């Protein structure tokens, strides 16, 4: 896979990659039973792999994407493709997750629109897209689907599960749902459960979509998309992923291509407005509005304390067996450091092996996606250690 030799700041790329898929639960009797009790089938899961699976199948790292990502974590789809996967700076030969050493599996999550079954998939009962008939899914359901894929690939044990934000939630869920199958957990900029602040922003974003007349109760697949609503939802999300400092540095109060205010509403005055509108309209081209509703709902529902039926965080990780690396970023106000510390405390109280570092970064919540030598080194050395201890 090395015919493509694009280099970025972090080194060479995994090259040309192919999106693959696996479908299961094709017979009604085999349907996936979701956390809500609803049965779902068939289920297709889209995935990509990078690197080589070792003969003993002991070098597998599973990557989880965040809210708006998909399974395309690294590499390019063709030689003409200018946009690499979302974690190109972390995944590749010689990088933080080194594809010369590890076999990396990356899937698209259930309920989203990255090729895995979601509200825009065809409902076998009607022959039309599910829309809001798609059942509400949880982070646990996403993880169940990933486990089905790994069973299919005959991968029994994961060296590590890695993810940031919603991806970190999946990684944590893996450590509890399948404790015997996970060696290490790398949880970046994540939380054991959403704060009221995080739920509030998600709700505003959902309301923006649902207030768009084109949304039409989720039935828009044969007509106009709720583009305005989804763009506004993305704009809200984008602000929460950045930070005051990052916004100040990037835009300040600079005006967009003008010397003075326009004194109008249909014109763009500030650069930050232009940036957000651009982000919003770009997002509409690649993301499904209903998926946004489902995925944000799953993130809001995620609650490890509730899941463990624990009266406090103390018992949450009683069943976990993995080693953990927890990383937060100083300027992240969506999942602030205190939430990572809560997670670390819960792990300590259960006598789990846990390392924690708060990395100084101005970029806000998105800091884990931005090239960061410190983070790459942390991840590389943690994976190395887990592998060393596993082979003992």
């Amino acid at each position, binding site marked *: 896979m090395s015919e493509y030799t694009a280099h970025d700041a972090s080194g060479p790329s995994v090259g040309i990659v192919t999106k693959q898929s696996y479908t299961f639960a094709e017979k009604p009797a085999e349907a996936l039973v979701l956390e809500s009790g609803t049965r779902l089938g068939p289920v297709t899961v889209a995935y990509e792999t990078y690197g080589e699976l070792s003969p003993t199948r002991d070098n597998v790292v599973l990557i989880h994407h965040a809210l708006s990502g998909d399974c395309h974590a690294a590499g390019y789809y063709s030689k003409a493709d200018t946009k690499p996967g979302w974690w190109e700076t972390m995944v590749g030969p010689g*990088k*933080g997750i080194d594809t010369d050493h590890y076999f990396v599996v990356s899937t698209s999550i259930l309920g989203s629109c990255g090729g895995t079954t979601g509200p825009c998939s065809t409902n076998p009962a009607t022959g039309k897209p599910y829309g809001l008939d798609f059942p509400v899914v949880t982070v646990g359901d996403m993880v169940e689907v990933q486990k089905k894929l790994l069973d299919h690939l005959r991968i029994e044990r994961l060296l590590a599960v890695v993810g940031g934000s919603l991806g970190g939630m999946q990684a944590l869920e893996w450590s509890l749902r399948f404790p015997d199958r996970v060696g290490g957990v790398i949880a970046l900029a994540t939380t054991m459960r959403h704060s009221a602040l995080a739920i509030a922003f998600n709700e505003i974003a959902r309301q923006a979509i649902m207030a768009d007349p084109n949304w039409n109760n989720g039935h828009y697949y044969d007509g106009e998309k709720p583009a305005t609503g989804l763009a506004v939802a993305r704009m809200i999300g984008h602000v929460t992923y950045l930070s005051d400092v990052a916004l100040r540095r990037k835009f300040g109060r600079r005006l967009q291509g003008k010397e003075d205010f326009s004194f109008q509403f249909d014109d763009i005055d500030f650069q930050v407005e232009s940036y957000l509108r651009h982000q919003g309209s770009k997002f509409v081209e690649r993301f499904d509005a209903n998926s946004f509703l489902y995925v944000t709902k799953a993130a809001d529902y995620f609650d490890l304390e509730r899941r463990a039926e624990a009266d406090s965080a103390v018992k949450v990780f009683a069943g976990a067996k993995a*080693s953990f690396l927890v990383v937060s970023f100083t300027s992240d106000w969506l999942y602030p450091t205190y939430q990572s510390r809560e997670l670390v405390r819960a792990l300590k109280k259960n006598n789990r*092996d846990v*390392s924690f570092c*708060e990395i100084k970064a101005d970029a806000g919540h998105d800091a884990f996606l931005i090239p960061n*030598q410190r983070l790459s080194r942390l991840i590389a*050395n943690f994976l*190395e*250690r887990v592998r060393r201890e596993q082979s003992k």
Partner: protein
Amino acid sequence: MNRANDPTRDREQLTDPPDDDREPIANPSPYEPDAGGLRQPEVANGEATMRFDLSVIASWIEPGSKVLDLGCGEGDLLYQLKQTKNVEGTGIEMVEAKVLRGIEKGLTVLQGNITEEVQDYAAGTFDYVILSQTLQQVYAPAQLLKTLLDIGHQVVVSFPNFSHWKNRWQICWHGRVPISKQLPFEWYNTPNIRTISIADFQRFLKKMGWRIKRETAINTDHHDRYGNVVTFLPNLRATYGIYLLAKR
């Protein structure tokens, strides 16, 4: 007799030359990623490269035990203990760059404040809790040591001996707050909020009723790399006191 009025000259004679290998804690060394790649090279961290006081502590730890190192820095001691004694170790360190270094060495390190972090462990979680050269910076030392003796079966405590003769000389003769290799700070930038002598610490232990399982006083060279055990007049001649404590 104007010597006391000429502080700079005398001061230079009595104070150790400025050291280059130990940054004040208040001003940590900047993190420098090495150019050789992402993985930490296997550094030979043998006895000779580790501080002498840490070597003494390492010699007290039983193989295969569970160790908590408070204020672990870049994890030199834990690394050594992991390599040579196969301990299961956790370090706690405040400074991000040092935490990163420790984790990169393959150690388990938590970034945080000692006093807060130790609260999360259940009684008897560790075989050893190590508080190396940090006691002089702790706000409530009696309370902290009580917690440590709770979460660990045994506690190692080491501290710079304030009543070393060089310090006494600086106070008595020059009327100046001592500055030495072990106490390298000026009054206005020191992180140390307490002065502890071996004699004072022994009195304190007696008062608390804790058991001293081992104690040693050491005198170290300028770089703290080499040293010797002091048995004669330790409160006067030793640069560090090191104790192994248990509740009873």
